[in-house]
């Protein structure tokens, strides 16, 4: 019998980053009993690391800018498997969401006329790709994520949101009918485990870049929400689609914003050649991130990489001058000095494509409602479960996300989920209570770790998982190598199931948190691996030597990974925006 203390809320939001805080704000304003449950104090969430900005057609830099142009770029950038109704929603609602942030106090940089400063970013165009480069990314210097996250946290304080800070969500609780009715969570400070009951459970747990050995992601990005949803039996969408950011600092993995190239910086190889002119004659360094990352790897593989080992390229910024660097890219100057030991006003930054963003995730509609598939292959709403932000796959990013679209995704769909939950609560939600055995099954894995008496160490297993992913599921992929990776992961899963948590203490036991995170990394890695192996084409960030072309006949589809059978199925992409004509798939060039 479980004797857990329970906490009851109208809505529980798991994750205190941008999307979670935006959803929470909406619900707190409505007076619903809402709590944000976050494993770190909210301003330590990974949104804080976003640099370059939030892309949105607010028509500041160009008074004639149009959200439809932004939508076109987004759909094209996603290599045509972004859902067009979702991209339409994001791009058209975006300006409202950005103005709200400004009204909340976000300290955007400004143009001389007092409006929000916008900079060019990759994959941006005017007039549906016909009007040249656009400047559509709203920025607070190169600290936009920090400014956005702090602003949202501040406004949640203003609206008295309840925070369960430094609490860790362990698993979802499902009732006998399969509805999600809350979660099991642990207070990290005391070790107490509680049953959180809620009519709406929002997974806003962010990404999982830590499945790779080299990533721009924070150490906390372990895919906790993805792991929870997979263990609860729910499918994941497009998990093969991982973005490798062109400019991670060589060796350290820390991000250097695309805004550097937006402000006029460019990449060079060991001969000093601006090589992107060969790969993307029009957009050059501001082509889609997948295109730039692949071009960099090609340069390195063909012997034109920089450094002793020829295993990176250079990002040249010195020609921008100290004033522009100091004004527009002050954080990059700092990071370059700390992690690359160079001053970008004098020397180029050594960079290499680095795992950055998970385009896939929990499939949702534009209201954040999680979706599964019935036996006939039709969409079916999961009662009680919502997702937003990087953990969700709405999908607005398709096979490749455009720079600056992540922050917009967070606030637009965090807000949308909050609004939808508010009205659903107003209409009344009743689900069956979880039974003792429902709760016990959600307690299974924390109990497993607490009972572990011997076995391999957690950090060693984690490092092995990251190596497998780095080796077999990187920028370029190939059948045999991936099969090898899938096999190794299956074996690793068995060893993780027998691994050892030596420290069983209660007070701020970070080893227990890392054990629970390892389970989640395992779930994300396996979903990624199987989806990557099964998608037999190249599209967006998923690039295969053995299937080098995009295959619209067989794969103009979302992939859907089912954890129980480890099978990959397909789901239709939405090609029906509500207010405009469909963007038909075209050959994607920059």
């Amino acid at each position, binding site marked *: 019998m479980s004797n857990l203390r329970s906490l009851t809320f109208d809505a529980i939001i798991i994750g205190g980053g941008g999307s979670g805080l935006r959803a929470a704000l909406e619900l707190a304003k409505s007076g619903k009993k809402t709590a944000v449950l976050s494993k770190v104090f909210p301003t*330590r969430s990974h949104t804080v690391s976003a640099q370059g900005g939030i892309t949105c057609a*607010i028509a500041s830099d160009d008074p004639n800018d149009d959200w439809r142009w932004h939508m076109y770029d987004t759909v094209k950038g996603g290599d045509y498997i972004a859902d067009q109704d979702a991209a339409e929603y994001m791009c058209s609602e975006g300006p409202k969401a950005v103005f709200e942030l400004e009204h*909340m106090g976000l300290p955007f940089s400004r143009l*001389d006329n007092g409006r929000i400063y916008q900079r060019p970013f990759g994959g941006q165009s005017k007039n549906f790709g016909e009007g040249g480069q656009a400047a559509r990314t709203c920025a607070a210097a190169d600290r936009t994520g920090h400014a956005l996250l702090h602003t949202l946290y501040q406004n949640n304080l203003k609206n008295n949101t309840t925070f369960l800070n430094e609490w860790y969500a362990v698993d979802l609780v499902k009732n006998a009918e399969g509805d999600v009715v809350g979660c099991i969570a642990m207070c990290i400070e005391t070790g107490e485990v509680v049953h959180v009951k809620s009519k709406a459970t929002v997974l806003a747990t962010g990404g999982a870049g830590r499945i790779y050995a080299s990533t721009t992601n924070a150490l906390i990005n372990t895919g906790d929400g993805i792991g929870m949803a997979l263990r609860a039996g729910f499918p994941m969408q497009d998990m093969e689609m991982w973005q490798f950011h062109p400019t991670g600092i060589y060796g*350290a993995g820390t991000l250097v914003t695309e805004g550097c190239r937006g402000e006029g910086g460019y990449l060079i190889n060991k001969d000093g050649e601006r090589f992107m002119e060969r790969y993307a004659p029009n957009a050059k360094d501001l082509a889609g991130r997948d295109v730039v990352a692949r071009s960099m790897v090609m340069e390195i593989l063909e012997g034109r990489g920089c450094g002793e080992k020829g295993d990176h390229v250079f990002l040249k910024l010195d020609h921008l001058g100290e004033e522009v660097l100091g004004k527009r890219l002050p954080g990059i100057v700092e990071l370059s000095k700390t992690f690359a030991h160079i001053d970008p006003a004098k020397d180029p930054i050594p960079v290499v494509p680095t795992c950055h963003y998970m385009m896939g995730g929990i499939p949702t509609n534009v209201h954040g409602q999680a979706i599964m598939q019935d036996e006939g292959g039709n969409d079916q709403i999961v009662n009680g479960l919502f997702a937003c932000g990087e953990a969700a796959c709405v999908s607005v990013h398709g096979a490749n996300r455009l720079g600056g679209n992540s922050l917009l995704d967070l606030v637009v769909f965090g807000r949308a989920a909050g609004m939808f939950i508010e009205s659903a609560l107003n209409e009344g939600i009743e689900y069956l209570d979880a039974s003792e055995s429902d709760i016990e099954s959600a307690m299974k894995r924390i109990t497993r770790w607490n009972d572990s008496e011997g076995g391999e160490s957690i950090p060693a297993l984690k490092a092995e998982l990251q190596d497998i992913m780095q080796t077999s599921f990187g920028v370029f992929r190939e059948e045999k190598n991936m099969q090898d990776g899938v096999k190794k992961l299956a074996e690793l899963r068995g060893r993780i199931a027998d691994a050892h948590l030596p*420290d069983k203490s209660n007070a*701020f*036991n970070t080893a227990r948190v890392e054990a629970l995170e390892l389970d989640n990394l395992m779930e994300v890695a396996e979903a990624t691996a199987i989806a990557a192996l099964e998608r037999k084409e190249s599209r967006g960030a998923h690039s295969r030597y053995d299937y080098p072309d995009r295959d619209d006949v067989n794969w103009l589809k979302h992939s859907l990974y089912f954890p129980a059978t480890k099978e990959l199925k397909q789901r239709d992409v939405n090609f029906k925006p509500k207010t405009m004509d469909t963007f038909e798939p075209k050959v994607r060039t920059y």
Partner: protein
Amino acid sequence: MSNLQVSIYRYNPETDSAPYMQEFQVDTKGRDVMVLDVLHMMKEEDSGLAFRRSCREGVCGSDGMNMNGKNGLACITPLSDVVKNNKLTLRPLPGLPVIRDMVVDMGLFYKQYERIQPYLQNDTPEPAIERLQSPEERDKLDGLYECILCACCSTSCPSFWWNPEKFVGPAGLLQSYRFLADSRDTATSERLSNLEDPFSVFRCRGIMNCVAVCPKGLNPTRAIGKIREMLLADAT
């Protein structure tokens, strides 16, 4: 042996009656790694070692700690900046209750942050687009909004050690001035009246430890000076 000698503060409330310093020998293979890397190496040896960390690039503010006597962020402090005679002493941020090892209870620090109403207040109707702000007005927020709430400054401040309940402390006051300086904020007089008692602001003695330790290069003392000026102007 060229192993780094690390002495680190340990305390687990469940098993230790009192805190103690534990010695570690860490083989950094001669590399000038960050202090956070050293902590991870020690944690591989002793998984019970508790410390906070998240972004590992100096923007989230999780891993503020005291390294050879100076507060800073472990993730952006290379050994060459702090290690003397091959020795590194690590302690939690001073002045706050310790939960376990390097993890302190930040409650008081956050309470002082919340006290200054750290959000924009503007009682005029919201326009359909953004509120306009000139680049010059926006420039006034530089050096203020970048605070990451790591608490390195407040926990190095003797005035905060003595009066953590009454003195807002450098971090809170920096944020207070961030809103006072914002051309879009209309709550200036209310903000100032919340600070005019003898403790909230005036306990700052200009010691400037805050400036010396801020990992983001911010200057809380200057911001506090500006608030004082505003309070004095307001009083006349």
